[in-house]
């Protein structure tokens, strides 16, 4: 059932994202040709439009994350979604996975577009040499190299998910009110952000007074880095769990469809 939910969520969102991605990549290729031909004015226009498209992808990814949750689950479509024989968990998880995939895909497409535009004289040999250098550094690190990449990827995914789940928690908490839900969601967002900042400041000052930095310093270079990464991963996992359970509680106990 999770797979089916994900499938329909992709169907609902791909029709917006894919044309945008396609337009950006195509325009980047055109820009590359314009640069190569040395046409100044068309190049500037092309670059501007590309920048606008990049901004549009960022905005659309965020807006669709909000909209897929608030409309598909908490709006009229919710009458269908919440009467499907699936658990509330799958509803939240499917939405979060699809949203996270679009954030990652959007980032990849933007990186690709910049690469296409910036690499005026793209040297494949040089690119390969650069890549092999990166792999060499990782190989020098031994088993640590693979571990760092894994930790980095896990951290990245969790960071995106914690952001997405924060948005879901804020929107679900707005169900407590009958009206002005959008404004209330934003209020919750500001509230959570402030509390997050205070907690962070408190933790940092706590870590200092508990000689945490000295403890970390005493470790070997790679071990200290791993401990550092694991702390970040654990913190993000905790944040994800908190927002997930707020969302789950609201959707299963306080559902209030429009």
């Amino acid at each position, binding site marked *: 059932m999770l797979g089916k939910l994900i499938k329909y969520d992709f169907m609902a969102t791909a*029709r917006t994202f894919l044309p945008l991605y396609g337009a950006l990549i195509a325009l980047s290729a055109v820009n590359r040709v314009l640069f190569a031909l040395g046409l100044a004015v068309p190049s500037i226009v092309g670059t501007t439009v590309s920048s606008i498209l990049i901004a549009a992808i960022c905005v659309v990814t965020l807006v669709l994350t909000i909209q897929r949750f608030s409309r598909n689950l908490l709006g009229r479509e*919710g*009458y*269908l979604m919440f*009467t499907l*024989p699936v658990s509330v968990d799958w509803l939240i998880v499917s939405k979060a996975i699809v949203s996270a995939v679009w954030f990652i895909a959007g980032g990849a497409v933007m990186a690709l577009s910049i690469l296409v535009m910036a690499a005026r004289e793209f040297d494949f040999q040089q690119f390969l040499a650069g890549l092999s250098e990166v792999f060499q550094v990782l190989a020098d690190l031994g088993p640590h190299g693979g571990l760092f990449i894994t930790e980095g990827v896990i951290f990245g995914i969790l960071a995106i998910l914690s952001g997405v789940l924060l948005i879901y928690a804020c929107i679900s908490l707005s169900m407590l009110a009958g009206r002005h839900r959008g404004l209330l969601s934003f209020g919750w967002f500001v509230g959570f952000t402030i509390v997050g900042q205070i907690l962070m400041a408190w933790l940092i000052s706590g870590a200092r007074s508990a000689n945490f930095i000295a403890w970390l310093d005493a470790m070997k270079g790679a071990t200290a880095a791993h401990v550092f990464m694991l702390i970040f991963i654990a913190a993000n996992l905790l944040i994800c769990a908190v927002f997930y359970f707020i969302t789950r509680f609201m959707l299963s106990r306080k*559902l*209030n469809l429009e």
Partner: protein
Amino acid sequence: MNPILSCEQLTKTFGSKTALAGVDLNIERGRIVGLLGPNGSGKTTLMKLANGLITPTSGRLLIDGEAPGTHSKAVVSYLPEVTYLADWMRTSDVLEFFRDFYKDFDMERALSMLKNLGIGLREPLRSMSKGTREKVQLILVMARRASLYLLDEPIGGVDPAARDYILSTIIGNYEPQSAVVISTHLISDVEKVLDDVVFINNGKIVLSSTVDEIREVKGMSVDALFREVFRC
């Protein structure tokens, strides 16, 4: 056999407002039941509780012996008051959607009903009138071989000619071992198809009876009795 739907002292409050107050009700299999009451009487609240869209404040509601959950949702076919289909989908997409999620969805039955009403499979829901969308939704709901059909105001938004088609669709498609609950205030239209009626007012059941009993004992139609009970 246990009733397909049963409520015991079911109560739901929204803040200081009581929507349902201690409702005791059993819906038996094989019956078509009219849930009748004026606007704001608690009909939709009862429907939402039965679908697990809201949770009771106190008391309990069981579907097929279980509290609303994944199991009950697999055996209940619900038609809400609102149009709940995403407008980016085509008729063929929503058919696929129902087949994917409901094991009891009968594709052939849905296709034949769509054909009867001349609704195209490639037609996007966006371009349909509100009435046509409501018909698509009713077809999807009635094409399931469910144990309990909960229809909230199924004829409220359509013209009288379509009402007859919808009612004959309901009668022609429900399974003999299933129950149908129709909530409405358009009683004269649905009266002819009902086996039982439940009158609800201010969140309380004020009368629960078979239609035959009303006709024989009270000597009046359900519509006439409704007007008498709910006289303003």
